């Protein structure tokens, strides 16, 4: 099926939204059904699969050891990578990460990093020399809109599922012990994405709404209701009033999701 949206559909969506409704029956600020599964990939140190409506994202984490960054010698390292896999959509092409996958990776990274979700100081093995490096790899498997929120959710779920090798430092030497310990997590950031269609804001746009929207922006909120990351995308704009209004809605929505997931 062509990914082009017809003028008829475009008008349909706009007219409904003007009345406060959406094509799939949701209200303007309703989020689709969320399903989270953890631990599906045994070879990964941690994994999760999230279904947000029909958008599907899988995240796998791997733990390795490496050198810390020079300006943070006592902290572990977080690296997030994202792939918009060609099988997820007729619009994703094979090849090296393009600006959309790079942006996705950096949005997911920011939410985790700025909220201090991982207790990175507990990932320090030998200050300045050896730390744990956490690789988070985001794989978008089916694109039915808003893979940003689905990816962010899956990334945190995968981290919560992650086990790191157990070790002890004896006589200045690092010795690996048997067994695993959970990755030390302090916070659970949740991201909410808004789209603007004809001057109305909707939450969690699905694919056809994304094809019609002027612009989107995403907010990551931590457990205390603080904002820790924002990213506006798309070639349209938002008024300052809309942004501040959205922040309040985002806080409410993340509280709802947090309760549901028990994070």
């Amino acid at each position, binding site marked *: 099926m062509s990914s082009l949206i017809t003028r008829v559909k475009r008008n349909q969506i706009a007219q409904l939204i003007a009345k406060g409704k959406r094509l799939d029956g949701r209200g303007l600020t309703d989020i689709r059904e969320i399903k989270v599964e953890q631990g599906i990939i045994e070879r990964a140190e941690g994994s999760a699969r999230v279904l947000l409506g029909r958008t599907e994202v899988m995240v796998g984490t791997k733990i390795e050891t490496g050198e810390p960054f020079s300006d943070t010698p006592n902290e572990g390292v977080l690296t997030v990578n994202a792939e918009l896999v060609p099988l997820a959509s007729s619009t994703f092409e094979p090849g090296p990460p393009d600006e959309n996958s790079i942006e996705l990776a950096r949005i997911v990274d920011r939410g985790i990093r700025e909220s201090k979700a991982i207790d990175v100081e507990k990932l320090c093995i030998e200050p300045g020399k050896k730390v744990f490096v956490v690789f988070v790899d985001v794989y978008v498997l089916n694109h039915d809109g808003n893979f940003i929120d689905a990816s962010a959710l899956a990334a945190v779920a995968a981290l919560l599922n992650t086990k790191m090798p157990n070790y002890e430092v004896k006589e200045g030497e690092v010795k690996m012990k048997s067994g695993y310990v959970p990755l030390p997590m302090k916070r659970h950031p949740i991201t909410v994405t808004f789209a603007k269609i004809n001057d109305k804001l909707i939450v969690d746009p699905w694919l056809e709404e994304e094809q019609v929207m002027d612009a989107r922006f995403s907010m990551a909120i931590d457990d205390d209701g603080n904002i820790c990351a924002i990213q*506006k*995308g798309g070639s349209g704009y938002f008024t*300052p009033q809309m942004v501040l209004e959205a922040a309040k809605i985002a806080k409410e929505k993340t509280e709802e999701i947090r309760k549901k997931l028990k994070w």
Partner: protein
Amino acid sequence: MSQKPEKLIDKKGLRLDGRKPDELRKIKIEVGVLSNADGSAYIEQGKNKILAAVYGPRELHPKHLALADRMVIRCRYHMAPFSVQERKSPAPSRREVELSKVIRESLEPSIFLEYYPRTGIDVFIEVLQADGSTRCASITAASVAIADAGIPMRDLVVACSAGKVDDTIVLDLMDEEDKLGMADVPVAFMPNANAITLLQMDGTLSLEEFETAVNLSLEGCKKIYAMQKEALRAKYVLLKEDEE
């Protein structure tokens, strides 16, 4: 290697460079600085030194990138290897790829793209020296360069950052504040349409602090907008002589 300062705001409430929390850095904007580009601008903001050039509208190569109903904008944000303390590799980093995208998206709403279908504009931004909030200074310069190229626009786009350092909301973050502060909120704005065309944030802010930061950055934007207009007039008023 420089020492990490202990406090970013001193007892008198002044920042590392002596500014008050709501003060902008010194800004200089020059228009038409490159003879080959169709439009160009140079900005200095604090120690930031950034050059923006625009080529177009012109035919797109490869042709299949062209759109049948509107102009295409391509944007390349790039930092010179010598622009930062530790030499940066000239190859485009992931950060530069992301910034190229968000900068392009901040400029698009200002241009009448539908006037010249099947053509393209290339916006090139080179950061010669970086000192925090480079994406904001880049947008401010790029928008002026687009106007200089004679490309029809709805309005200029202006950008300014706000953030939080040592529990104080401040305007126009410099490098140390960007790196060591508690939050950074870059904002790009089109004043006539009351439109925010770029908005990002990293750090931690309560909803109230976020509102304060956004409002502060918009005030900064309005001041810089006047400077953009001033710079454009300064170039063209020389070509216009008095009526006899």
